[in-house]
């Protein structure tokens, strides 16, 4: 069946129902394996000691925070260009998840920063751009919540998401530039420890687990969103039901 056939939300819900148990199972397996590997198999880093274990959640969370925005940007194109009925549902449901991953990246990064850099926070390019990303997620969520009409909210949010996506790399590069101006390279820069397979493997497994988790939650949130819109539409109809004038209308052109 072609992807477009799932344009129908009902069919999409069916697909979710089939897919979800498998995804959940895989996700649990990958998390178990990943956690085991990162705690018991991965070696200590010669420089960072055991704190390197934070990497196994920090890096996947950071990756996911960006991937999630990409998903939203793609969905926004779907909303604006193809007017796909599921696109803005997807974008809306992804925002809180993206915010959560961004939050995780920030928290784990800060907690890693304290032992490594001696401070929880520096106004370094990468850190700051992630903080700005969090603000953008939260702003989008607010925009969605504030607009009563979900269709209009979806379009407005799509425009903002796309503009924000364009700005994302700009923030990153310009902040790099900004940083070198005031502060010489005193900030600890992690260009990644030598990627040894012993470290790479747990990282990859954890990243897969995070990605699976994203899809599970995203699908479930999309399902909720579809149901929320159904509830809304049904309520609108319920309110109108005893009102003969407000049901749908036909027309009879007459001379």
């Amino acid at each position, binding site marked *: 069946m072609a992807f477009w056939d799932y344009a129908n939300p*009902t069919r999409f*819900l*069916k697909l*979710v*129902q089939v897919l979800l148990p498998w995804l959940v199972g895989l996700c649990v397996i990958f998390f178990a394996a990943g956690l085991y590997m990162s*705690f*018991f198999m991965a070696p*200590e880093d010669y420089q960072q*000691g*055991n*704190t390197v*274990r*934070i990497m196994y*959640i*920090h890096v996947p*969370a950071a990756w996911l925070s960006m991937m999630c925005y990409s998903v939203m940007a793609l969905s926004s194109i779907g909303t604006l260009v193809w007017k796909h009925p599921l696109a803005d549902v997807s974008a809306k449901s992804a925002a*809180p*998840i993206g915010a*959560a991953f961004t*939050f*995780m990246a920030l*928290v*784990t990064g800060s*907690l*890693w920063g*304290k*032992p490594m850099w001696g401070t929880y926070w520096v106004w370094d390019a990468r850190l700051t751009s992630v903080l700005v990303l969090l603000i953008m997620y939260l702003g989008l969520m607010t925009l969605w919540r504030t607009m009563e009409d979900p269709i209009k909210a979806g379009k407005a949010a799509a425009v903002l998401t796309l503009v924000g996506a364009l700005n994302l790399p700009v923030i990153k590069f310009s902040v790099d530039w900004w940083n070198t101006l005031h502060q010489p390279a005193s900030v600890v820069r992690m260009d990644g420890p030598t990627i040894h397979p012993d470290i790479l493997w747990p990282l990859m497994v954890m990243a897969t687990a995070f990605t699976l*988790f994203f899809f599970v*939650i995203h699908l*479930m*949130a999309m*399902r*909720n969103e579809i*149901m*929320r819109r*159904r*509830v809304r539409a*049904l*309520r609108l*109809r*319920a309110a109108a*039901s005893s009102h003969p004038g407000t049901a749908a209308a036909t027309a009879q052109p007459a001379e």
Partner: protein
Amino acid sequence: MDFGSHAGFIFASYGLCLLTILALIAWVRFDKAHQDRSLRELAEQGITRARPENESKNAR
């Protein structure tokens, strides 16, 4: 297993991540329960989607 002097930071970050993940799960579960309840209440008032294959409400 010994995590050295920085065990606190490691466990704090894993713990906070776990909390965030749990919060996400709780959010989708509660939201689902909420929507299910709303749909049920509407159904009790006789308001359903007047469609032949009424599969929407039992998606689980």
